[in-house]
């Protein structure tokens, strides 16, 4: 009899060797453990062990052999046992349960099991403590450290235990909340949550006093007290996360708010100016859609998952990526996800920031733990879902130490028409059944929407963390995209993300009028959830569908046949009422109008901020080659190959421009996929953000982001008439007038540049409070705010395969820089690493930029461009070197032609809107014809040697390509 199965890999696993390297200890072994709630007899033990292990590579530990087997490795003396906390998603346990149930059928049932990682070491207790800190997160896992002897003893005496969720059997009785209380007590409800009978608080609602007063007024008009569920629902629906109150608020003299005026306003203006509108779906749906070809639409959405990733980097990031995948599934009638994008803004993983959420306790996770967790979260989420992840980037800055930024995006594709009906239109009809499909509901992510709208402080709730389960979602997604959608079996669909059912049903019901939901029907992960918890839980992998009654049986059967749960939980009605019942008791009854539009509108004022200029730094004297090496190996320029190779970018067989380009594998600025087998059109993707430019001039910062994201697609070969962009504002302290001023400026630039480039915004998202308030290691209180960050993601259509460019020149190619170079070194990588020079910040001149881009596009279509690379961080110097590394071909650069600026200014200025191109010698004449009257400089040629050389009047300076490649491919310290 035993209650555990523990499996050991005979040979050293990759994970073990990386642990051994990291901790400089050769005696580390990892055991995969499974703890059962029931004892297994010998026969069951043997059978189940065989089902979940491989006897070629693994050994099963038993009471009899455990000591002998383990002592054959070494004399272990410490053990750490890492398990998930009760209620945290345990994907491995789910799989094991399914294997057992399938194989043993009814002979072994009603059991629980939990997966466990057991790490054994020979070493000191400090060593195992250090390992446990790197391998486990106390927020979601229990960590037990004990001597090896006790481990053997536990084995002998069956003392391995799983902890089940044991929620007290609470009988729910309808709870009415008295809001006729003092302002102070009212604000406590907003800040700390509704008070339970035992005086404890549920956790922040994120409702300010004015919102609570608005709620009080509403209920006094309808002459009754609100229920707890009503207040929770209003808190979710009115959260900054769901309603984007700051973007829709009156700000200074802008009545309609910056979203309407600058973002949506830009798109409307562009559609009006252009006669060829290619936008299909704008701002209202889960993603934005544009036309791909005459039969297909593509959609794109980018989300952020910052606060959850600060608390549980792996769980936060995986939930981020599978969450945004659902935005595609919920676009129109359901688009198939065909590419993921990512962008991480992180603190230096090699530094120890030692921040605490409470004085001397509750430490922030170390920066390298956060970085690694985020990178692997998206890896597991993307790879397991079978969606390629070609496009992304990482940027490091100390100011992300309090909150990392995690942007996750997805591109989807959907036929324009499904059974003759437009696929991007959907409408839940009165009488349609509300069906919830996918995963079950637990306490995951309760209050996620409300707390991500707040600063991270000691009261941030820990239950706000979810862990994604990509396989459950993949199963659900396959049924929807492959089977149900194309038979037109449902009338509307949306995903369950922030705010859970309360948001998804609330949003969909706008289409029909209202809804009635019976919460007791919702399938739960475990018993003991209160109705309000079921209603707002953010448990992942769920879609809500509106299904005509005649199709319901068919739809449910189809889900079930694929191992997916689907449950009827209510219906849509015509009456504009939101009604929720729990065991027949009505616990929510609100007017739809009040639910969605009743929140008090903000009235914001801005003020001009003090400009925080970069501090002057003495320029270190060093050679040009030396400077190039320093820049190439700096974290924001160095190759991100280690991410590209762990993210599957080949799945779906669509990758046509890959993240690593040229024989020398340079990490590209843009990538492309070819989504359809029978059309040569491709989708090019890129993105850009310049948080480092933000404090100097937020308007120019936004201009640079748009320009770079747009330029990268032009350089890749996209059709300039088919480029759309997405905005993701991640701001800080958005209740402070100077931050709001920066916001307004950035938004204004969005309008100006989008309209100038005629590239419409199709979707966006904002996250307004990325601040950390806590303490440093001395107990001093600190506030760390991220620099304002605007990520612009660009998506464009490339009409022909032959338009796709490469960054590798051929021998004898002439090298040109298109666009003017000015001394714009302010806030550049050069100024940070080499030293500060008197300079200006990069400013985009859209007229000049457009001339360059149009000419480039024309030349490229005529086949005149042989290779090209956008010039950005590190300027011409880095672009030239990257070209040489990618092609493994030498280049010679003539510095005489640099105009009136210094060599360093010429080579490292980050002036925008420039492209480095190479053209075949015999095409130079054609080229000059096209580019007549625009700014370009011939700067050298491709020699095919093994060096990059820089010539001026006096001397020639040479650097070997292989040395440059070494610098460029250096590991990032701490990762």
């Amino acid at each position: 009899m035993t209650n555990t199965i523990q499996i050991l890999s005979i040979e050293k696993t990759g994970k073990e060797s990386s642990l051994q390297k990291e901790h400089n200890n050769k005696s580390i072994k990892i055991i995969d453990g499974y703890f059962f709630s029931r004892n297994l007899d010998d026969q069951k033990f043997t059978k189940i062990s065989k089902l979940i292990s491989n006897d070629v590579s693994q050994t099963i530990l038993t009471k009899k052999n455990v000591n002998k087997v383990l002592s054959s490795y070494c004399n272990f003396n410490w053990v750490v046992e890492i398990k998930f906390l009760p209620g945290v998603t345990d994907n491995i346990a789910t799989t094991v349960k399914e294997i057992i149930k399938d194989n043993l059928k009814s002979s072994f049932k009603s059991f629980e099991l939990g997966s466990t990682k057991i790490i054994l070491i020979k070493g000191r207790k400090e060593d195992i403590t250090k390992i446990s800190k790197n391998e486990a997160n106390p927020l979601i896992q229990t960590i037990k450290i004990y001597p090896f002897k006790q481990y053997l003893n536990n084995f002998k005496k069956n003392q391995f235990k799983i902890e089940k969720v044991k929620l007290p059997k609470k009988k729910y009785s309808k709870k009415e909340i008295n809001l006729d209380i003092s302002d102070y007590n009212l604000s406590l409800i907003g800040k700390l949550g509704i008070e339970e009978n035992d005086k404890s608080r549920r956790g922040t609602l994120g409702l300010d006093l004015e919102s609570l007063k608005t709620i009080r007024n509403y209920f006094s008009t309808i002459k009754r007290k609100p229920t707890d569920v009503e207040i929770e629902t209003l808190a979710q629906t009115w959260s900054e996360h769901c309603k984007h109150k700051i973007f829709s608020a009156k700000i200074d003299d802008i009545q309609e708010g910056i979203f309407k005026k600058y973002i949506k306003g830009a798109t409307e203006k562009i559609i009006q100016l252009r006669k060829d509108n290619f936008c299909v779906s704008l701002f209202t749906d889960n993603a934005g859609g544009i036309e791909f070809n005459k039969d297909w639409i593509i959609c794109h959405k980018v989300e952020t998952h910052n606060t959850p990733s600060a608390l549980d980097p792996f769980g936060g990031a995986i939930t981020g990526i599978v969450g945004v995948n659902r935005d595609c599934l919920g676009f129109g009638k359901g688009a198939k996800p065909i590419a993921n994008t990512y962008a991480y803004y992180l603190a230096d993983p090699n530094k120890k920031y030692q921040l605490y959420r409470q004085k001397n306790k509750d430490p922030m996770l170390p920066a390298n733990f956060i970085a690694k967790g985020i990178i692997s979260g998206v890896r597991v989420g993307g790879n397991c879902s079978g969606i390629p992840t070609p496009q992304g980037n990482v940027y490091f800055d100390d100011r992300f130490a309090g909150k990392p930024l995690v942007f996750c995006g997805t591109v989807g594709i959907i036929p324009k028409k499904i059974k003759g009906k437009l696929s991007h239109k959907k409408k839940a009809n009165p009488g349609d059944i509300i069906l919830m499909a996918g995963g079950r509901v637990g306490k995951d992510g309760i209050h996620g929407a409300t707390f991500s709208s707040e600063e991270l402080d000691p009261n941030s709730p820990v239950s706000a963390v979810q862990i994604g389960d990509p396989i459950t979602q993949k199963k659900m997604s396959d049924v929807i995209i492959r089977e149900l959608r194309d038979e037109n079996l449902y009338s509307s669909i949306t995903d369950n993300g922030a705010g859970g059912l309360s948001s998804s049903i609330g949003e969909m019901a706008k289409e029909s009028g209202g809804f009635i939901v019976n919460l007791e029907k919702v399938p739960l992960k475990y018993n003991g959830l209160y109705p309000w918890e079921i209603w707002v839980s953010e448990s992942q992998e769920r879609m809500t569908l509106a299904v005509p009654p005649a199709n319901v049986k068919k739809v449910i059967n189809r889900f079930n046949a694929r191992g997916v749960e689907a449950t009827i939980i209510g219906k849509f009605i015509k009456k504009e009422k939101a009604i929720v019942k729990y065991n027949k008791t009505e616990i929510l009854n609100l007017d739809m109008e009040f639910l969605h539009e009743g929140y008090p509108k903000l009235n914001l004022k801005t003020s001009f901020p003090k400009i925080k200029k970069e501090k002057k730094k003495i320029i270190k004297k060093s050679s040009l080659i030396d400077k190039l090496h320093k820049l190439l190996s700096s974290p924001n320029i160095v190759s991100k190959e280690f991410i590209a190779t762990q993210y599957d970018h080949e799945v779906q067989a669509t990758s046509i421009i890959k993240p690593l380009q040229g024989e020398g594998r340079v990490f590209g600025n843009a990538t492309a996929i070819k989504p359809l087998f029978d059309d040569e059109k491709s989708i090019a993707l890129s993105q850009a953000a310049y948080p480092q430019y933000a404090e100097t001039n937020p308007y120019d910062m936004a201009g640079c982001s748009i320009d770079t994201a747009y330029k990268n697609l032009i350089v890749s070969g996209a059709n300039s008439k088919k480029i759309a962009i997405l905005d993701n504002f991640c701001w800080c302290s958005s209740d402070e007038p100077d931050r709001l001023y920066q916001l307004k400026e950035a938004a204004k630039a969005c309008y100006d540049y989008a309209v100038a480039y005629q590239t419409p915004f199709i979707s966006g998202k904002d996250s307004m409070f990325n601040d950390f308030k806590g303490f440093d290691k001395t107990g001093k209180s600190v506030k760390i705010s991220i620099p304002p960050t605007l990520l612009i993601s660009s998506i464009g259509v490339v009409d022909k395969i032959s338009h796709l460019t490469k960054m590798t020149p051929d021998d004898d190619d002439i090298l040109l820089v298109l666009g003017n170079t000015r001394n714009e070194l302010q806030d550049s990588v050069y100024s940070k690493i080499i030293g500060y020079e008197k300079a200006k910040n990069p400013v985009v001149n859209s007229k000049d930029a457009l001339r360059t881009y149009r000419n480039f596009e024309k030349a490229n279509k005529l086949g005149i461009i042989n290779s090209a690379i956008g010039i950005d961080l590190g300027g011409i110097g880095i672009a030239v070197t990257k070209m040489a590394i990618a092609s493994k071909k030498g280049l010679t650069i003539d510095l005489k032609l640099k105009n009136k600026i210094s060599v360093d200014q010429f080579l490292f200025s980050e002036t925008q809107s420039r492209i480095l191109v190479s053209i075949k010698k015999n095409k130079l004449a054609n080229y000059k014809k096209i580019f007549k009257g625009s700014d370009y400089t011939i700067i050298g040629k491709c020699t095919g040697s093994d060096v990059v050389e820089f010539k001026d009047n006096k001397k020639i300076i040479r650097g070997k390509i292989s040395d440059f490649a070494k610098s460029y491919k250096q590991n990032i310290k701490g990762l």
Partner: protein
Amino acid sequence: MNVLVLSGYGINCENETLHAFEVVGFKGKIVHINDLIQNPKQLDNYQVFAIPGGFSYGDDTGSGNAMAKKILTNLYDQLIDFSLKDKLIIGICNGCQILINLGLVPSLNKKDPEVAMIENKSGSYECRWVDVKVNNNKSPWLKNISILNLPVAHQEGQFMIPINLLKSIKANNLIGLQYINNHKKLAKGQFPFNPNGSKDDIAALTNQNGNVLAMMPHPERAFYHYHVPNWQNSTSKKFGDGYKIFMNAKKFFA
């Protein structure tokens, strides 16, 4: 010529795998494993059984294991039957891991499984292009091919084979593909040419008849010329190397 391409529970390369078969002339269908379990007789209509790549059950309990156990519980006899006929089976990446866990490859002593797929030596997921050479020309899948340039994308691609078994695998010539370096010589375990540290640079194994092929690289992702990295510099105009594998299946039945 009909091909059945398996799907479900996290398999994810079924569309492109089916497409590759269709282009060379097969008729095919993607069949969910639960539908196959419901109606295993439909296998009679097919000449090729393909298990595509993916992440069945999220690699939990070892890549390919959980799906192999599902097949073992519900479809094993039918699949053995299929393999004993004049038919072809291919497992690509996760499909390879499933076939290995089922013991359908190398299937020398009929004890399952004989080989294990373990984590890459690097400890990380590897998505990159590799060169492999064909070692065994007798498998219908690999006839008249010498070298292939294909992508791999896996976390657990290392073949672990007990020494005695490896001897008989070699004696029976069951190593299908081996990783080679940039000088077209065996990679000898050297990263990145051998991306996972697989013993003897093994990238694919076959059964004794050669009609069952378990390969880690993805031929369906190297099907067209534009799939191949830096295709702009290449002269080949229509297909990539992966095409040859699918053509061989066609030729086998032609």
